């Protein structure tokens, strides 16, 4: 029997900027849910967004039925962000008063900021607004922690570890580990396991 969900469908948004590895992380997450027997759908927005644009994935799981690939506005239960302004952009559209938000506070500056036409907002202002919008806001310095662990690119898996520790995500460490083993080997596998645990522990505490 597939374990009932505290909310069905459970809606998760994973957002960031092209090149941060959110597509891969999301695919692994979805595979872990399918292996557990859930109806799982993943919607991905990329394409031209590979070129520095915003990237967003919607993951929806259900015990009963398959859902469409896009989450309706205001119906995200959890939002995982790889980049601060992207998470606020997404939270405004998809969060509600019960939503959990976890994000990496390392900015990825848009072109408008680089060339001085726009100003990157202060992280504390972003957190303030997120706290008004959502139930739970947590920063995890995923990129910095991943750099310390060995490679900045592992930040995506670190955040998946954090997501797995959120109370109503029906996934155990071993279950995500299975898909890691399917896709990685050698040093990459060890690094991903290590950062996954780091992310997991930061939320479990």
């Amino acid at each position, binding site marked *: 029997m597939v374990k009932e969900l505290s909310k069905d469908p459970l809606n998760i948004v994973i957002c960031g900027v092209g090149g941060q590895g959110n597509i891969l992380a999301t695919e692994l997450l*979805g595979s872990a849910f399918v292996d557990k027997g859930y109806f799982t759908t993943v*919607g991905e927005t990329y394409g031209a967004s590979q070129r520095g644009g915003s990237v967003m994935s919607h993951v929806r799981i259900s015990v009963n039925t398959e859902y*469409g690939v*896009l989450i309706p506005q205001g119906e995200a239960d959890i939002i995982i962000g790889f980049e601060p*302004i992207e998470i606020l952009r997404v939270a405004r559209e998809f969060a509600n008063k019960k939503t959990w938000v976890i994000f990496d506070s390392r900015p990825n500056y848009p072109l408008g900021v680089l060339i*001085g036409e726009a100003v990157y907002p202060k992280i504390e202002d*972003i957190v303030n607004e997120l706290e*008004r919008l959502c139930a739970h806001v947590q920063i995890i310095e995923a990129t910095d922690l991943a750099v310390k662990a060995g490679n900045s690119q592992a930040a995506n898996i670190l955040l998946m570890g954090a997501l797995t520790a959120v109370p109503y995500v029906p996934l155990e460490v071993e279950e995500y580990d299975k898909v890691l083993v399917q896709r990685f080997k050698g040093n990459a596998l060890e690094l991903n396991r290590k950062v996954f645990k780091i992310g997991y522990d930061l939320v479990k505490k």
Partner: protein
Amino acid sequence: MEWMITANEPNKTYLMQGNEAIARGAIEAGVSFAAAYPGSPSSEILTMLGNVSEEAGLYAEWSTNESCSLGACLGASFAKVRSLCIMKQNGLLVVGDVLHSASLSGVKGGLVLVVGDDPSAHSSTNEFDSRHQARSAALPMLEPATMQEAKDMVKWGFDLSEQLQQLVMVRSVTRISHGRSNVKLGEIPEESIKPTPIGEWDRMVAINWFKAAQLNKLDQAREIFENSPFNWYVGPVDAELLIITCGTGWFYSQEAVEALDLKESVGILKLGCTWPLPEKLITKHLEKAKRVLVVEEVDPFLEQNIAQIIAYNPHLNLELLGRQGQGIISRSGELNPDIVRNALINITNKLPVEIEKVEIPADEMVVLPARDLTFCAGCPHRASFFILKQTLRIHEGQGVVMGDIGCYTMGGQRAGHYLYNYLGCMGAGISAGEGLGQLERFGFDQPVIALAGDSTFFHSCIPALINAKYHDSNMLFVILDNSATAMTGFQPHPGIGLTAMGKTTEPISIKNIVESIGCHVTVANPFEIEETTETVYSLLKKPGLKVLILEQECATLAVRKSEKRKVWVDPDLCRGDDCGCGRFCSRVWGCPGNIWDDETGKAVIDEVVCVGCGVCATLCPAGAIKVEGGEAIG
């Protein structure tokens, strides 16, 4: 993941991308031949088929353009093997002539053409609706609503194609192609189909004599579609409001009906066979309804054809709503669950259970900078556009820049200093440039520059270049050769020397092609900013047709092949805002690797983003940017 598309595990369920499911469906059908030209959202299909070609016993090619790919599939079909052709919606317009001819000649071995449409044009210049081509060419079309259907329809499409001796189209959209969900695998045939010899009197000929046969095939398809399991109805027997939908609209409609608690009064007719329409099935449901809402991606295609059914059946008396009818859904743009829910709220006045959502007053919201698309860190196009901008600034007269399709399309935006005056379809830049370059005789004296990437050059620029040479148009044609079809995911093209199946082959030199047409060619490196700027300037001063190849490998590919060099800013040398350069490295150069530290007031390199090309080091007036191992450029 490739292993899923060849996994011999019938009834096993995997999370599959729509494109994976399509590739899997073809393999379950015993496809032997696949050809495509890359284009988002369909590109992954042939990449995967190429990667498994050996294991699956099939041939896969990245054709030079879509016409070549469909033509190649028709050839394979003539020998009665099954072939899959894949393209995006723009490609379908490129192959219009081939498509309409194929429909007249018919096919022998099953031929399925998968088109990936891009509603809202996420990675396209337009959101053309492929279904118009199916209708125009009198071809049967299927539209999957789920990843499972994507697999099953492609598989069945081959059977249908052989039954009708006609090409069958399958229309995917971005949300299917790039979505993922549970897909249950079917069986893979043990052996793929071998070619049958073509006899002396075998024919595949496209002439108008076969028009009647073509239309008969369409009638047969309609009869088959009347009973297809890809069309279904859910809801009460006597629904007063009927939703007719296809593709992504199925889940959006189902979720909206559920959210508004309308299951008792609203029915949904989901169509998987969208051309020709199963008119009897539709009419049966129309007879019971008073109002019909049509939910579909891009154009009111179903809606207008249903309007036609209503017009031919005077006993039907109902109100038709949709993208056209009362404009209940916007006339353009991609669907989403909210659009469909709001349409239903408008029609029924039912409201969903309120979600507790905080609305923050506009004046208290953090101002979020927009995220423009831009060239990747280290991209040679950034250098090329900087050179063109510089050259046109110092050149007398306002230069006119004719753009084209690829990563460098972004040259028309902020990333390329808004340099484009013109942008059309693939190959349009040089064609339109040729025309402008003929106007000198009437006093038009602005320099004309047309751009094209390497893949675009092979795809559609060669006849236009011959045209420009033969008629000696006064223009500069710049080929931005980055050794990749980068925009769509680095598929190889004829200049690369690699096939879709990973085999090496003799690369075709762009320079040799251009020279063989009789053009003089200059080759330069865009990373040598100063020298290349002078080269462009001197070329613009010459009369007639000039061709310049700017050669530098795509940075995203280059960085995969070699160790990334460390680049850093020496804070003692960077003069900050006192320099007078106006923060050149970040504000003008605009590479995402060059950022500004507000605390120290100096430039820094974002090491996570920087790929180590070192071009910025050659541009810094203070010489403050340092490159590991000197300042040589990659």
